[in-house]
């Protein structure tokens, strides 16, 4: 009964990441096989992060809950054709964005009108989607599930599919102590998974934690970033989660935040995306129009000129020498979190 767990080596970084701990189990019965779930810890936020936005006392995180959410996230049977899962458009190796695709393919190869954003640190985000139309992480999945160009499954059908699967039923019983699988429990489980996708182990974080040091070029890049970019891409999350017009010329009548608020002032405003893992998640912007960081920087050099309603906080008359450009890019590279994209807690459970 009483399994006493002694951590022989308590490597802080590994706890933070939810990577396997080196542990010794003592139990009454000798050689009891250890279920793998005991080898990981709940993902934790580092000390330099602000308090989380998502906190639902009725949906307390557990490893089993996260695991259940992960199963759902990678489950193609939640789509109309049985071919698309959340992970089809949000791939771990690309920080859960869709690498190389301006617009992802949903069921029947259909394409939407917006680029699949990278997913991490969602527990800190107050609103979701490029236009901020969704105000709570728990209900976010309803949109892709039901969208006819994404997964095309009415929520009620999702409940039917999940609720008629014996393995799922057992898992829901275990995690939420419920005999009936309703949409609320499914959404709770998905939120457990999405809010525990914490990316906080980039070189940038290790520098803050005095475990690494910036090169001179990265330091100069950081100064440039503070001056030109941090007003919107605010550290440590690298977004202030506001909606801004960053000067992109309007394409395809995409008005962003305006669609939700119907406020003229919001035309051309989109959610400021985090720049963590930015090297891993091209193409860039809400419509994936830029394929490289260099194209993005070219845009910011003259961003003020492209759109009449461009944000006043954009770089003014930005000029970047080749060295400065290299410095800025080197700094952005320190935001890449390799352990996030290899964390087994978030990987495909079917592999």
């Amino acid at each position, binding site marked *: 009964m009483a399994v006493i767990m002694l951590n022989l080596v308590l490597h802080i970084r590994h706890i933070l990441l939810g990577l396997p701990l080196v542990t010794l189990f003592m139990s009454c019965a000798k050689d009891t096989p250890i279920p793998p779930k005991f080898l990981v810890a709940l993902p934790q936020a580092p000390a330099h992060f602000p308090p989380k936005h998502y906190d*639902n006392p009725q949906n307390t995180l557990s490893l089993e809950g996260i695991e259940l959410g992960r199963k759902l996230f990678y489950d193609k049977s939640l789509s109309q054709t049985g071919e698309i899962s959340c992970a089809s458009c949000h791939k771990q190796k690309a920080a859960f964005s869709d690498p190389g695709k301006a617009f992802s393919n949903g069921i029947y190869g259909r394409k939407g009108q917006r680029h699949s954003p990278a997913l991490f640190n969602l527990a800190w985000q107050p609103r979701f*989607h490029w236009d901020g*139309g*969704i*105000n*709570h*992480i*728990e*209900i976010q999945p*309803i*949109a892709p599930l*039901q*969208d006819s160009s994404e997964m095309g499954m*009415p*929520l*009620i059908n999702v*409940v039917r599919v999940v609720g008629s699967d014996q393995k799922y039923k057992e898992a829901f019983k275990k995690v939420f102590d419920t005999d009936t699988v*309703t*949409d*609320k429990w499914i*959404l*709770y489980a998905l*939120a457990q998974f999405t809010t525990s996708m914490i990316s906080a182990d980039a070189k940038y974080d290790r520098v803050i934690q005095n475990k690494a040091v910036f090169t001179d070029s990265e330091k100069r890049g950081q100064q440039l970033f503070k001056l030109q970019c941090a007003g919107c891409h605010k550290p440590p999350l690298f977004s202030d989660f506001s909606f801004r017009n960053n000067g992109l010329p309007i394409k395809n009548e995409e008005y962003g935040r305006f*669609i*939700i608020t*119907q406020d003229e002032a919001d035309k051309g405003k989109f959610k400021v995306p985090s720049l963590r893992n930015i090297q891993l998640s091209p193409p860039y912007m809400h419509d994936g129009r830029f394929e490289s960081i260099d194209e993005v920087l070219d845009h910011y050099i003259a961003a003020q000129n492209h759109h009449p309603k461009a944000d006043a906080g954009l770089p003014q008359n930005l000029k970047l020498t080749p060295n400065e450009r290299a410095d800025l890019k080197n700094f952005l590279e320190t935001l890449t979190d390799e352990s996030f994209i290899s964390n087994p807690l978030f990987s495909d459970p079917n592999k």
Partner: protein
Amino acid sequence: MKTTNLFKAKNHRFTRILATASVALLSITMVACGDDDDNGNITPTPTPEQKGTVTLNYTHVWGNAGSASPELQLNTQLIHPGTKDTITVTKFKYYVSNLRFEKDGGEEWVEPESYRIVDVTDNALVALEIGNVPAGNYSSMSFIVGVDEERNYSGAQDGALSPTNGMFWDWNTGYIFLKVEGESPQHGGFQYHVGGFEGANNAIRTVSVSFSNGLTVGDNTTSNVNMYVNTARVWHGGLKVEDLGTFMMPDPRAVNIADNFQNAFLFDGVN
């Protein structure tokens, strides 16, 4: 029914005071002779609160004349009494939330988790059962047509608030407070999805109903509150089908309809 006089009402209240007093006496006696538990302590027997049920009967009609107006028939051509538009209603569905019952002295009972959907089908009468209403004499009640602001921000929810009820926008978070769909031979199909809880497009409306002769809720009894709901009121003020088009998000047209529908509820009586 309608002639219940003041004297009778007062008399009734007096009887109720007597009844309450005797229940109080009874419970004191019961405490005094409560069972001894194993340790010899006296376990007080709690006074059971007296509670009854109120059934809200919403009869959906087409016109503002109460029982003299025809009942709303779905999938049937109707002529709007004001605009003379020909309208076929195929769906009429709305939220009734945050029920409150007020007593004469201002004391009120607020129903917890108070969310229900009224879905008019073949039957124009939709009855909502409100359980656990504390016994007493009430002078008025109120409810929201829609869902309060807080629950539009609260993430995943169950029961009447489950998004599977088809009264929820997934791409622009919020509940659909009132869904009216149909067609008119002149203008084709229409869908009014009324919702919105922020700023100028806030479409949450409170309906107050005062019971002209009071509503008495007794212990373990069921009382009825009867109302007529004038569904034609959606197009009140000369609103024509062609003026409205179709809308599926917070919108000034939704606000207009919410204002109209707030005044669609006509109190008929209690029994």
